[in-house]
């Protein structure tokens, strides 16, 4: 299989399989969670907790102030990843194609900046996983695999865009394939937090909201 066939496969069947697996897996994961139900609340609540639940989904986007020193790198990485995924113009085209919604992408130099930022912070985060005692004790082998799966699309994307490496077609194919690997891994690893974080935050915020606490 040459690089052209690889790219065609990646853009065609590969993307379809990955999308199918991801959508299937995420739907399954979310339903699995929901199936376990939530105990009925008999205490006289101070609020229904619904508003607070949604509020927490948004509010937890900013960490508690004392946490900045632990989270800055990870935070920048997530912001970078978000910007790169959702505002690189070719990516906006993909979302337009898949979801039919379109928003304006950002100029390439901004995307470039965030890509480098994300790559750098990811490397730092990897080092932290070895160095930070709490993070280290929590780390499982899969964490390093997940790190790699997240790291590859950034690097291949950067290399493809800047014509670094063997050949643009091949790099683009590798980039798309690495994204597909990420998509496949999304529902089966802790990467699922990209979706379930909203549920976790909702439940936490909602439970606290019922008691009148802002979390």
């Amino acid at each position, binding site marked *: 299989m040459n690089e052209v066939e690889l790219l065609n496969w990646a853009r065609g069947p590969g993307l379809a399989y990955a999308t199918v697996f991801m959508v299937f897996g995420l739907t399954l994961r979310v339903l699995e969670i929901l199936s376990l139900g939530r105990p009925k609340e008999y205490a006289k609540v101070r609020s229904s907790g619904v508003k607070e639940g949604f509020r927490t989904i948004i509010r937890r986007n900013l960490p508690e102030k004392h946490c900045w020193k632990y989270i800055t790198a990870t935070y920048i990485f997530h912001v970078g990843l978000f910007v790169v995924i959702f505002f690189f113009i070719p990516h906006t085209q993909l979302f337009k194609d*898949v979801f039919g919604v379109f928003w304006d992408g950002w100029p390439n130099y901004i995307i470039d900046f965030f890509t480098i930022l994300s790559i750098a912070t990811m490397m730092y985060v990897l080092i932290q996983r070895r160095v930070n005692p709490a993070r280290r004790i929590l780390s499982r082998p899969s964490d390093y695999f997940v790190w790699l799966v997240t790291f590859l699309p950034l690097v291949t994307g950067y290399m493809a865009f800047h014509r670094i490496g063997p050949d643009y077609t091949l790099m683009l194919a590798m980039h798309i394939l690495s994204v597909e690997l990420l998509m496949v891994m999304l529902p089966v690893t802790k990467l699922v937090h990209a979706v379930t974080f909203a549920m976790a935050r909702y439940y936490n915020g909602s439970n606290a909201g019922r008691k009148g606490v802002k979390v």
Partner: protein
Amino acid sequence: MTEERVDKAETLGGSLISNGVSRRTFLKFCSTVASAMALPPAAAKAMAEKLSQATRQSVIWLSFQECTGCTESITRSHKPTLESLIFDFISLDYHHTLQAASGDAAEHAREEAQKKHKGKYILIVDGAIPVKDGGVYSTIAGITNLQMLQDVAKDAMAIVSVGTCAAYGGLPKANPNPTGAVAVSDIVKDKPIINIPGCPPIPVVMTGVLAHVLTFGIPELDSHGRPMAFFGDSIHDRCYRRPFYDKGQFAKGFDDEGARKGWCLFEVGCKGPTTHNACATVKWNNGTSFPIQSGHGCIGCSEPDFWDAGSFYKPLSTGSMNMEGWATGALAAGAAVGVASGLLNSNTKSKAEAKHEPVTLEDMGAKNE
């Protein structure tokens, strides 16, 4: 003296002069080719020198599953062009579209040339070769394309696959490929093959490569068998609209503000970034323009399987398949399995509930202590 005159007449230099093609025209041709192939400028003189000393090269041109667009491309100008000079340098011994002979006489000419120039002739192929069902889907004079190719290729010095069909299978090979079309390189494995893809290829690319083969031999090729000189860069790399890409200025339709301002055509499906060809530099119709300059994105015609790479009008960064149905199906399947798994979960939970025994004061070990 007589000897010498005979020799001179057989060399291209001699025969061209007698046909009214001046040495200056010759040199001009060579410097144009050298420039197009990015050869060092001094190579033009060497090329002219070599060409003039060469004898006319026997060429057999086989056309298989094709549209004659490649032949059209190389011969289309009704005025004599510099590119058409290549026909003065070669002896086109068989080309069933161009030759005057027909029927038995035509096939006889081919067999003659094969015999006479055994091991020395160049075989040019345009069109893909159907191999399904013994290759019955395309025959010439009762001979299948497959047989004819194998037969002619056997004694060829080199093969030039002209056009994407011959080079990579092209349109005939596109899904679902009913005739089982394949490229020349899928059949012939033991001869040097130069691919000059494009639908059609640029005339000067064809003449340039032939001139190179006649003078300096087979040029440097990329991993797809294409001459680096013409296919080394992508359209995108050499595109004059590239600065708009870098700045993120894109035409979003063919009639919008961006289109009028000549912005990058990535978003309307330009495949320039993954297409290797010389369109952006050599251009078409004697350097008049090329598709992107005319406001249409590159469709990637010089790449393998470009027909199967999705819509010409969807950006390169999008999938090439319509995934709405797939995604909906996956959602439904996920929901079904999710509900099933959820029921299992509920079952596990109710079982746990049923098995549960309350922790009572009697369980408090301290009491017993």
